[in-house]
């Protein structure tokens, strides 16, 4: 049994906070961590795993640094600038799926009256919280941007830990306008001032300088990765652009995220230089797939099938860099602009615009929208997205499934739909 399987089995058998802390204490030791990192096929995968474990270690360690729960669509630069360790319950729900813990966390959520209709990212995270598997938060910041479930389920976390006074809900306006920016910036400033008054940190814009510089650096490298991928004919089989949610969001504003995105760029560039010419001469070109929304985080065959059938995911909607550079001299306005620029907010036209441009820029032959059970913000637009792509002759497969709960879809049915779609692309 390899180290990854041993980790999985260990945590499945000892599902409690003490064991998680002990495990992180061992695996996050530098020699162990770097030995573990060597088990990954590329430098970017190695750093992704190392930085993920290090960030979890920070969140689970008993130091005096405050912990902040943040939903996916808030700017996590805020936490980093305030010296708060971010913890992302939705990303953790993805880990529960990857570690095979979701059946237990979902069962726990059900027994606490969480509806079966609630998105399993939130249900599994809530179940894990009920099982006391998460570190205790000091602050919780969420928003009404795109995801409705976050506002509600994150508030329940604050009640559980009796920190309702440290729960902040950012109200993001529907439309992008200067008035909206002022409204949003004022809220972010208030949150910042309130947290500073509680932590004793002096509210000063200088605290944003380094974080924003690193965030801008991440942005620059993410754009570089995207530009490289526009003309990349092939990919290493282990590459999956849907794995980088934590660094793209939760680690935005850290040195680790910058290192990681530089490594992704280097890995793909190296592969492109070495392999692409040879591959394109020998084989017929791969079908280029645009991936919309997320993927299942439990073990599944989707990407193996795509790779085997000579289809490559050339871009993922979630990796779109939608925001402008942040200016530390105008921190609240910058973060407000970042949130308001998110294409998942406001009208569906914002999202469609991004998808159509990506389909064009990345020369997509087809698109797959993974329709995650309970995710209204994504599934609600499925029909209009499919129709919009059809107008530019790009077929779309709306693949119904669940990112976290493997029992909520049949692998055989997913496989048939996927293969049927590939046959259409090849016909």
């Amino acid at each position, binding site marked *: 049994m390899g180290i990854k399987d041993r980790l999985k089995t260990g945590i499945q058998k000892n599902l409690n906070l003490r064991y998680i802390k002990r495990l992180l204490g061992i695996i996050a030791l530098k020699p162990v961590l770097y030995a573990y990192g060597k088990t990954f096929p590329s430098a970017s995968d190695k750093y992704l795993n190392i930085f993920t474990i290090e960030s979890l270690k920070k969140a689970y360690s008993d130091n005096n640094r405050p912990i902040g729960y943040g939903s996916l669509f808030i700017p996590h630069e805020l936490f980093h600038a305030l010296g708060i360790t971010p913890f992302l319950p939705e990303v953790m729900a993805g880990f529960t799926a990857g570690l095979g813990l979701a059946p237990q966390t979902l069962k726990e959520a059900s027994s606490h009256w969480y509806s079966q209709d609630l998105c399993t990212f939130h249900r599994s995270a809530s179940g894990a919280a009920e099982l006391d598997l998460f570190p205790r938060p000091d602050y919780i910041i969420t928003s009404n941007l795109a995801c409705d479930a976050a506002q509600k389920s994150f508030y329940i976390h604050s009640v559980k830990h009796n920190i309702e006074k440290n729960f902040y809900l950012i109200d993001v306006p529907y439309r992008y306008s200067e008035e909206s920016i002022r409204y949003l910036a004022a809220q972010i400033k208030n949150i910042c001032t309130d947290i500073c008054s509680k932590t004793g940190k002096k509210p000063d814009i200088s605290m944003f300088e380094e974080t924003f510089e690193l965030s801008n650096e991440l942005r620059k490298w993410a754009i570089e990765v995207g530009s490289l991928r526009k003309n990349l004919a092939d990919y290493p089989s282990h590459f999956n652009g849907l794995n980088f949610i934590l660094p793209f969001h939760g680690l935005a504003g850290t040195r680790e995220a910058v290192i990681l995105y530089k490594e992704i760029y280097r890995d793909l560039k190296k592969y492109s230089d070495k392999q692409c010419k040879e591959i394109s001469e020998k084989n017929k070109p791969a079908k280029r797939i645009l991936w919309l929304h997320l993927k299942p985080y439990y073990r599944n065959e989707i990407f193996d099938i795509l790779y085997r059938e000579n289809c490559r995911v050339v871009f993922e909607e979630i990796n779109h860099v939608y925001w402008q550079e942040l200016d530390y001299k105008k921190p609240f306005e910058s973060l407000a602009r970042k949130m308001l620029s998110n294409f998942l907010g406001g009208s569906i036209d914002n999202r469609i615009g991004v998808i159509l441009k990506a389909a064009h820029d990345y020369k997509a032959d087809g698109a797959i929208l993974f329709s995650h059970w309970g995710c209204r913000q994504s599934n609600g637009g499925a029909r209009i997205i499919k129709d919009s792509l059809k107008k530019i002759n790009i077929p779309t497969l709306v693949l119904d499934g669940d990112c976290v709960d493997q029992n909520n879809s*049949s692998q055989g049915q997913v496989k*048939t739909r996927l293969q*049927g779609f590939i046959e*259409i692309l090849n016909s």
Partner: protein
Amino acid sequence: MYTCGIDVGSVSTESVILDNKNNKIVSYVIALTGSNSKNAAEAAFESSLKKAGLKESEIKSIVATGYGRINIPFANKNITEISCHARGVVSSFPDLKTVIDIGGQDSKVIKLEGGNPIDFLMNDKCAAGTGRFLEVMAKALEISLEEFTPIFNKTSDKVDITSTCTVFAESEIVSLIGHGVDKNKIIKGLIYSIADRVTTMVERVGLEEPVCMTGGVAKNLGVVRALEEKLGVKLNIPDEPRITGALGAAYLARDLH
């Protein structure tokens, strides 16, 4: 030269042998799948060979389709039922635009352009809108599936079956019988219930004529009529709608060369 297509479905397995010289079906077999799809495929293949008076060595290639397609080691290739059904119907109806297939545990709608599939939709994990739904209801009503069509034809009124779930629908009809509701009206309601489900799927993909219906449920003329009424179109039915997938697979096996 001959090719063979084998469609391993959840309820039945079909094997079709095609003479590639004249595109004529030499033989076909429809058998129950049972618990072992691999054995069912082997048995159906052997029976179809025997029926055709051919030896295995005379079959140039085999394409497997259906849910059990990946478990047929003697097949040269496996292709999904989406492509196979599309290929199977265009051999009979070349200008076809929409295919409705209702099988044992699966219903699908395929949109075609120039004989090729361009879009499709399959039922979700629920058995509603499939042949299994009718089977379960027939059992609950203690009648055979063959009786559905004559009852549909002679009954003018229907009772709405509101439950989508097969299990709940079964409870609902048991309750209706308990309340003394006419069995024939319940049967007519069940047929419309399946037609409603499938109509929604067709509308999602986009209805375009000509339309064809395949699969075991296409033998149930009550369902065919209810669907025609709901969709407002005439449905073309192949001579043997149950072998469409296997026939398409046999054509696609021919195309391998």
